[in-house]
Each structure stands twice: as C-alpha cells, then as structure tokens.
C-alpha cells in the first residue's frame, strides 16, 4: 500500500481519536465519582450536534458571517445549552438514585438515552439535518511526484486537533490545580471520606456531569463543522466507542481517556483503510469486548483486586 494512503489514514485516525478522547472524558470522570456508566452520554453529544446546527442557523440569521466570531459564538452557545443538559440529567435521573443499586442507575441511564433520542426525534423531525460548510479548504502536504501523492488535512480537522488538545490541557489544569479539582479527586478516591471532610459531594458530582457534557459538546461542535450532517441516532455508536476509549486508557483516568481515544481512532482508521470499512464498527466492538474481558483496568492500569 502506498505511503500517502497510510499517512492519510493516520491523520484521519488522529482526528477521530481526538474526538473520542473528548467524549471519553465524560465517561471516565462520571465513572470515577459515581462508579456508573453514564449510558446517556452519547445522547448528550447528539444534542450538542443539534445545538450546533441551531446556533449556526440563528447566528447567520442575525447576520454573523465571518468565520472566527461565528465559531466562537457557536461554541459558547452550544457549551451553555449542553452543559445545562448535563446538569439537568444528573439532577433528574441520577441524584434521586444516590445509594440505590447500580443496576437501577444503569437502567435509569438507558431510560434517559431512549427519552433524549425520542425527544429530539419528535421536536426536530426524524430526517438527517445538515449545516452549510463553515470552514472549507485544507492544508496539503505534497510528498513527491505523482497526481495524488499528498496528505490532506482540512482546516476543520486541524481545528479539531487544536481544540481537543487545548481543552484537555485546560481540564487537566482545572482538575490538578484548583480547589474544585481537588474536591473532584477526593470524591473519586473516597466519596464518604470526602463528605466527612466537608466536601459537598453532590455538587462535585453535578460539576463532573457538567464537565463531561461540556467536553462532549465541544466534540459535537467540531464533528458537525467537519462532517456537516447529523441525525437523532448518532449518539449511540459514538458513545459506545468513546466508552471503549475510556476503558482502553483505564477508566477513571483523564490522560487515559485521551490516549485511549487516540489509540482507538488510529486502530479503527487503519482497520477501515486496510481491512474493511463495512466491519469497522464490528472491530471497535470487538476491541471493547476484548478490553473489558481481559484487561478491565485498561492497558496501563493495574489489575483491580476484588475486596470482600
């Protein structure tokens, strides 16, 4: 296989992986503080894609047409709306179940997921929606002679990588160096002890949900700008893949989410380029099952000891 095709697949894989990493943050942080899989997280991402479409529509209706303010305002609007969704979901569907069996939490999360899909389908219609291209154009790196011997990175793709890295770095700083971050880490280690030490764990959990939703919403904006179309069912597969990324990097770990995302993105993109693009979802699910069965603590984590 030619060099430029492999390189192109690697670039696409990195972009995909950065997106998985952003969404995986929501899974990994919620798992850290609540020990539950937030099954509805993929739906939050889907909501943010719709919010992007709506925000772009409203902004261009209001006469904002130059690219930079359009993008920034869209990101702000979408982050606010989706963050609110994250908070409300936790408040309505998970907080009343604090202390309930984990099975109940997961069933409630599946309920939220079904509800949100139906809600968006009913209010926005079942057909796929699209946006006008916001950032057309691409960088081209010519590798040598030949008609198609180049690697192409669209502006939207480079935006994805930049945004993902910046927001992950900012989040790591927040978690590592602010009092809120310290409270998050304390809650993750031992919620009961954190409560005894005067940390409002309910507020920490709410914050974690909002952070997860905000990261997913950034991914939603970027994906929508890059691909241009979305429908009400996109959340499920992306959600499962992002969860795979979170487990791959070791669930509960923030850098693990990004590393796992990048790894899964690269693997998936090489697989779909060289083996079969029809079976790329089968491949991702197989990776998920293999990791959960054989290395449930992730590629880099220590095996968990079952405590009695």
């Amino acid at each position: 296989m030619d060099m430029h095709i492999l390189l192109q697949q690697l670039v696409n894989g990195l972009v995909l992986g950065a997106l998985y990493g952003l969404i995986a943050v929501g899974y990994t942080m919620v798992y850290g503080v609540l020990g539950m899989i937030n099954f509805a997280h993929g739906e939050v991402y889907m909501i943010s894609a719709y919010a992007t479409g709506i925000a772009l529509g409203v902004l261009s209706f209001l006469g904002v047409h130059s690219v930079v303010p359009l993008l920034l305002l869209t990101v702000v609007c979408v982050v606010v709306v989706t963050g609110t969704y994250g908070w409300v979901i936790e408040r309505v569907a998970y907080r009343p179940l604090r202390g309930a069996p984990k099975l109940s939490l997961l069933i409630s999360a599946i309920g939220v997921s079904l509800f949100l899909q139906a809600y968006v389908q009913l209010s926005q219609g079942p057909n796929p929606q699209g946006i006008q291209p916001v950032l057309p154009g691409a960088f081209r790196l010519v590798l040598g002679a030949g008609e198609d011997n180049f690697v192409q990175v669209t502006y939207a793709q480079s935006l994805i990588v930049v945004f993902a890295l910046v927001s992950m770095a900012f989040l790591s700083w927040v978690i590592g160096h602010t009092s809120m971050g310290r409270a998050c880490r304390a809650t993750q280690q031992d919620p009961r002890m954190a409560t005894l030490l005067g940390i409002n764990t309910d507020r920490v959990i709410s914050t974690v949900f909002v952070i997860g939703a905000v990261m997913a919403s950034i991914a939603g904006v970027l994906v929508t700008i890059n691909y241009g179309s979305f429908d009400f069912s996109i959340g499920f597969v992306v959600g499962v893949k992002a969860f795979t990324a979170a487990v791959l990097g070791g669930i509960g770990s923030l850098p693990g989410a990004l590393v796992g995302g990048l790894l899964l993105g690269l693997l998936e993109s090489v697989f779909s380029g060289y083996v079969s693009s029809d079976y790329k979802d089968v491949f991702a699910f197989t990776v998920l099952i293999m990791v959960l069965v054989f290395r449930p603590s992730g590629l880099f984590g220590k095996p968990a000891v079952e405590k009695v």
Partner: protein
Amino acid sequence: MTRTRISTFTVDLAATFALAMVVFGPMTGLQLNGFSFIANWQRPLVLAVVVTLGRLAFKLAWGSEWGQRWMARKQGKALDTPKAIGRRNQLWMVALGFVLTIAPFAFEANSYLTKAVILALIYVLLGLGLNIVVGLAGLLDLGYVAFYAVGAYFLALGYQYWGIGFWTALVLSPILAAALGGLLAFPVLRTHGDYLAIVTLGFGEIIRLILTNWVDFTGGPNGASAPGPTFFGMEFSRIAKYGGTPFHEAIGQPYNPNMKFLFLYVVLLVVVGLMVFVVDRLRKMPMGRAWEALREDEIACRSLGINHIAVKLSAFMMGAMTGGIAGVFFASYQGFVNPTSFTFFESALILAILVLGGLGSITGVIIAAFVLTLVPELLRDFADYRILVFGLLMILMMIWRPRGLISAKRPIIELSGS
C-alpha cells in the same frame, strides 16, 4: 409560611423556569429546516410552564403535613416483608390463560387484533426469557436481542439453504441459541455489573452488524423470507407450494388468510403457557434459588459452595433458549426477517417491559408486555410518543418503584449495590 420561605420558593421556581427554557428553548422552539430554522415559541413555553407547575405541586405536596405523613407511611411499607406466593396468584394465571385462549376466536374476523396479540405474546416470551437473566440471576444483559435474531434467522436461512420448516426450527433453534449463549457466556461471565452489561451490548451489536454486512449469506439489509407454520405438513396458504393439500381444503373451508395467524396464536399460547409453568417451577427449584441467591450476594454464595459459573451459565443459556424460540415465532409471523428488527432499541424495549412489570415477577412481565405492545397499537396517535414514554417510565420506575408495578411475591430483598 414565613416571608423568607416564600421568597426562596419564588427564586426556586424562577430558576426552574429559566433552566427549563434553556433546555427546551433551542431544541423544541427552533426547528431545523434545511440550513435555516422555523421558530415556534409556544412549544418551549408550554413545556417550561408545565415543568414549573409540576415543581410547584411537588414542593407543596412534599412540604405539607400530608405529604410528610405519606412519605413516612411509604417508607414504613417498604420495610414490610413481601408475602409468599399464594394460591390466588395461580388462579389469576389460569383465568388469564382462559381469557387469552378464547379472545381471538371471539374476534375471528378481526385479524388486526389477532396479529397485535401475537406480537404481544412474543414479547411475553422475550420478557420471560430476559426475566431469568436480569430479574432472577441479576445479570443485566443488554444484547438479549442477539438470541432473538439467531432464532429468527435460523428459520429464515435454514428454510432458504436446507429447507428447514417451522416445526424443525422450533425444536432446533432453542438448542442453537442456548449453545450460542453458552459460548458467549464464557467471556461475558468473567465480567461483573456494568461491564457485563456493556459486553453483552457489544455482542448484540456485533451480531446485528454481521447480519447487516454479510450480504451473501444473510441477504444483508434486505433480509430473508421465512416460511409460515404448517399443520401436519398442511400449509396455510391459498395454494400449497410444496404439494399436498392446503389446510383450508383439508377442512373444507374457504381460504382465510387469518387462519395462519390463528394457528400461530394457538401454538404460541401453548408455548408461553409452558414457559410460564417452567419458569415458575424453576424458581422453586435449587437452580432458581441459586440464581436469586447469587443475585443478592455473589461472595456469600461462593463461600457457601455454590458454583457461580455453572449457575450463571444456566441462567444465561435458559434466557438465550427462550429468545431463540421467540425468534422463530417472530420470523414465521412476519414471513420475513431483516436486521432492523434486532437493534439495541429492541433490547431496551424488552428491558422496559421487565422494569415496568417488576424484575423477577412473572405476572408483572406478562401484563407489562401486553400493555407496552397493545397500547401503542390501539392508540395510534400515541404511537409517536411511545419511546419517549418508555424512557420516562424507566427513569420514574427506578426512582419510585424499583420493584415494578407488580412486585415479585417472594421474600425478595432489594438488589444490593456494593
């Protein structure tokens, strides 16, 4: 009520209204239309007002003396020991079975109703099967639909490639599904809790994706056709495709397309009755008791010498078997199968039936299956809101009645979270 209390109340309600506007405003108020949108301000306003009024009512009811007393009573009730199964319950079952037997004959002309009831019974079967895995053994299986798909595709593809008929498939598909269940169980049972749920979800999706993408063998998204049932080799079609006499000629009646469905209904009813009997008995046998014990506390069971792998495996395979049988009925009923019938949503629907009926309760599962499949059929206007209501019900049930509307009548204590 003091003034400060009233003011915090007002602030709380205003915040609720504002939040509801942020949540509902863009999503329901601005409908995307091409690259533009249609503004519709009534929808979010109405929704936000409803939410705010709901919160007001909630706060008033909970804050009042009456609400406090009700809560206290409810909590006292939850601590009561559930009663053991009585005779009354079994009488109920017999009565229900009798009504179900004569119902479609009373509506013989109404093939629409017969079909709806067949579908409901298929969901009863699926609910009973998943009930063994989730309700009794406590293994949250989100890929249950895979076994349903295996049963359905076994009839369709077996007919296409090896000329297998309805009855052969009905006997062989549970064996095949159980074997597949056993095979999948080995990796699945290495995991616990949420991870187990996600692994089963992964398997379910993989099977669906293979059915969609392996076009040469399965027919891909176009699906494959499945044969109808036969009565001692007599077909229910107008003209017998494979020789012999069609059923309606043998009994000397004019051709009636509804006859196939009536026959299918009778067979299905017998199978469901048998299944109810088997599950009811299994629960009282050592195996069933081991399932429930393992659900409550795995470590205690293992230290008491229960082979947890064998017990979980038996639950998983029993569930898979039932799913396989349901699949054969579904394929024969529809006359056609394709992968869209076996999405994750279907698994979630079966789970919703279980949750509404009460995890572990047979009567509850039967009633919930009928309610959740027949109500959307009978109230067509409601059909669009079906999934919305299912999702909402799953959340509300988990919060208020985690044991379901008709909770299992056995000394069952809530599933314990670790």
